[in-house]
């Protein structure tokens, strides 16, 4: 087991080193140079439209997050990325081999998004933005957050009320310096501060819901959040589905490219660069706490979803095996629907539709969604296991004088458990790995934690490799516990133990 773990690690390192050693090609110095380039844009961002309009011949690739596109640029898969200039500044601070073309592609207004028809709140927010403009707060914020050096941010002290109606703020906290997660795990940045100022002015406590950028508007519409404050551009398209306040920041989209005389950070000696990555991704700002919390969440969701799913699966299996159509038909339908739908879709449906109006912990939603999915699979596993036990076993139990129920528990079940464990284990492991999508509903699991770290360090490989190893370790550890169950349910195990002793 140790050997194979090492092998996996070595393999991943190998990939890291090779993809990291990128080729330096002809650099882009003007928009014309980029006409046939490979350009990265963010899904659902204004960059998509800009790329289509200004670079019709370019190969456009969509990414979920800036850090993914930066990682792609580092490994030479992209020539340029269209992004907002604050992000461009931020990335180039950490990656001196990149810069951006000073000429903006498009000027944009950054504003707060609200659910349509919320006119009172809209007017209040517009007033607040006016006040902030007038007293110079916005200007001071701009200077403190959008700066070109790596010195620590100075954050304003804001006292928030602890009582009152919760103000739920939708953010995508992988957008430094607009919104990001600091070393204490709280959402901060220019927009984090803005949201707190608004909370203080409205005399309401603030709660941040950190989710993927493209999940923000659906969350706003379904009432999961009250407003989006995360450097969102007020586009005409978005105006169709949400309302925007007046702009609080004048943004611009720029073309982010590689410098002509780029010296890759990867040119550092291998171990030195690993040590650097280790420090910046794990030690710096105590990021390991973030990773550990993510790890805890992943384990929590996996284990509870398995328990819930197994119990539900047993119930579904019981119904499925019933001779009564009233019971077996719903079970059949349940199984085919849940097995035929991607778990991500189920997860989003439960979060945004079923529990739309209820304030429910997303972790609970994740446990329910994964449990339901797991149940559909294990119900069928249980059924084949039970049906695989020879009918004669049941008959012998009944003929001996056991009731049907007791025959099942004393005779059939112990034989079933042994039979199904190997398949069950596989299903369980795939559940653990599937939980990596919970970031979509604002749960900070292991994957999301690594996304947050990557959004700060713009180092794709180290966090990814680390997360891969952590997933492997979780699976391995949980697998060991299931294998233990498998061993003790092996009837011959007892005897072997006795004969060994």
């Amino acid at each position, binding site marked *: 087991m140790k050997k194979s773990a090492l092998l996996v690690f070595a393999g991943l390192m190998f990939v890291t080193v090779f993809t990291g050693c990128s080729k330096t090609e002809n650099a882009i110095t003007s928009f014309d140079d980029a006409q046939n380039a490979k350009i990265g844009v963010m899904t659902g961002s204004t960059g998509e439209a800009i790329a289509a309009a200004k670079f019709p011949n370019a190969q456009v690739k969509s990414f979920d997050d800036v850090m993914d596109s930066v990682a792609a640029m580092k490994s030479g898969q992209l020539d340029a990325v269209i992004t907002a200039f604050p992000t461009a500044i931020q990335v180039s601070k950490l990656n001196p081999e990149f810069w951006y073309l000073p000429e903006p592609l498009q000027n944009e207004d950054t504003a707060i998004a609200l659910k349509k028809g919320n006119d009172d709140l809209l007017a209040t927010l517009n007033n607040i933005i006016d006040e902030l403009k007038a007293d110079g707060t916005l200007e001071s914020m701009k200077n403190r957050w959008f700066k070109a050096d790596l010195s620590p941010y100075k954050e304003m002290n804001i006292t928030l009320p602890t009582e009152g109606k919760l103000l739920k703020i939708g953010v995508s906290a992988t957008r430094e310096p607009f919104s990001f997660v600091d070393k204490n795990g709280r959402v901060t940045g220019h927009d984090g501060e803005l949201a707190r100022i608004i909370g203080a002015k409205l005399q309401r406590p603030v709660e941040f819901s950190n989710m993927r950028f493209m999940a923000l508007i659906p969350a706003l519409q379904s009432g999961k959040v009250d407003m989006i404050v995360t450097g969102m551009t007020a586009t005409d398209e978005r105006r169709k589905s949400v309302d925007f306040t007046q702009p609080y920041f004048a943004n611009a989209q720029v073309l982010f490219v590689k410098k002509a005389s780029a010296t890759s950070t990867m040119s550092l000696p291998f171990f030195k660069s690993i040590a650097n990555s280790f420090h910046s991704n794990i030690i710096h700002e105590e990021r390991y706490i973030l990773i550990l919390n993510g790890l805890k969440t992943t384990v929590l969701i996996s284990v509870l979803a398995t328990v819930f799913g197994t119990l539900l699966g047993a119930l579904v299996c019981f119904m499925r095996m019933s001779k009564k159509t009233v019971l077996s038909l719903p079970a059949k339908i349940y199984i085919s629907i849940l097995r035929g739908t991607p778990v991500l879709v189920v997860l989003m449906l439960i979060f945004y539709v079923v529990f739309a109006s209820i304030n429910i912990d997303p972790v609970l939603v994740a446990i329910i969604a994964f449990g339901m999915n797991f149940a559909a699979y294990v119900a069928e596993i249980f059924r084949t296991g039970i049906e695989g036990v*020879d009918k004669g076993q049941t008959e012998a139990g009944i003929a001996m*004088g056991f009731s049907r129920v007791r025959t099942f528990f004393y*005779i059939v079940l112990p034989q079933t458990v042994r039979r199904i464990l190997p398949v069950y284990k596989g299903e369980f492991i795939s559940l653990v790995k599937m939980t990596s999508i919970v970031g979509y509903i604002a749960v900070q699991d292991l994957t999301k934690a690594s996304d947050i770290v990557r959004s700060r360090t713009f180092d794709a490989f180290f966090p990814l490799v680390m997360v891969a190893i952590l997933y492997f370790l979780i699976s391995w550890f949980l697998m060991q516990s299931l294998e233990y169950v498998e061993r003790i349910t092996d009837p011959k195990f007892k005897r072997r133990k006795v004969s060994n002793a």
Partner: protein
Amino acid sequence: MIKVEHLSKKFGDLVVLRDITIEIRKGEVISIIGPSGTGKSTFLRCLNLLDRPSSGSIYIDGIDILDQKTDVPKVRQKMNMVFQSFNLFSHLTSLENLTIGQTKLLRMSKKDAKDKSMELLKLVGLAEKADSFPDELSGGQKQRVAIARCLAMDPEIILFDEPTSALDPTMVSEVLSVIRRLAKDGMTMAIVTHEMDFARDVSNRVLYMDEGLIYEEGTPQQIFENPQKERTIAFINRIRSLNYHISSPDYDLYALNAEIEIFCEKQILPRKTRHNVLLLVEEMLQIYNPFLHSTILDMKLAYSEKKESLELVFENTGEAINPLDKKRLPDELGLRIINNLAESIIYQREDNKNRLTLMMRL
């Protein structure tokens, strides 16, 4: 002890048991014999309600077990069953197979159950296999453990459903001798079996079942030495037969020959016998040929495995004539061949029919 009245069982449209009435008394050993598919096993399975009867009633010690209020699992504890396919609990050792019922159903202490189970395993000669799992035992050993498992529940009667059918011949005797021993100890048993010699010397009473009925019943002597009814006789003598019906002179001789050949092959008769049968039938039909336009001829070829003999019977309607009457025949060649092949030839006139019975040597 067990009283069955007008028991019948249908599976859908298929009637397996028609109308069974019987009483089993304490200490009796009853063998149930009969051809396959005549409901012997179903009858046994109806007794402990593994199959629920379609109608009729079953009383065990005066309790109607088909009554909704009866605690059937409780009744089953007194009436355990040994299966053709053993059905030992495959996740338990031999010993645990015995103790599980005692501890869970009879609420005996683990120690008592273990002691008693070891005794019983000793009784069936398998004490040293106490810690073996079923898949480590031979068929005969499995069946003996299964019998011990029944005994562990202190049953008043044991039902055996073809206990040796799934065993290879070398293991049959070890199982039968265990059952013999139980019989000697006075255990009440009902045994469905194909082992005729065993049935004859172990049981007090033999039931011959056929067509979903208890077709004939009696002591082993009555059934095995002097069966009264036709099917019983055929079964006891292990007789199998082929019938052929000829109603016109244009019958298909080749089809008939093919059927005879298939029949002989099935009974594994020697090639020479087969040849002789074909020759004999052909000569006989030659002689019958002049009658065929006016009468109907029934031919029956019967083979008795027990007596190792072949019997060829011809029956025809019409006036009383022995077709083999020398005076009637144009020449004696055919008759000579027939006399040569047949050991004996008997002519009878019965029910307005002429019957010729020819016995053949094998």
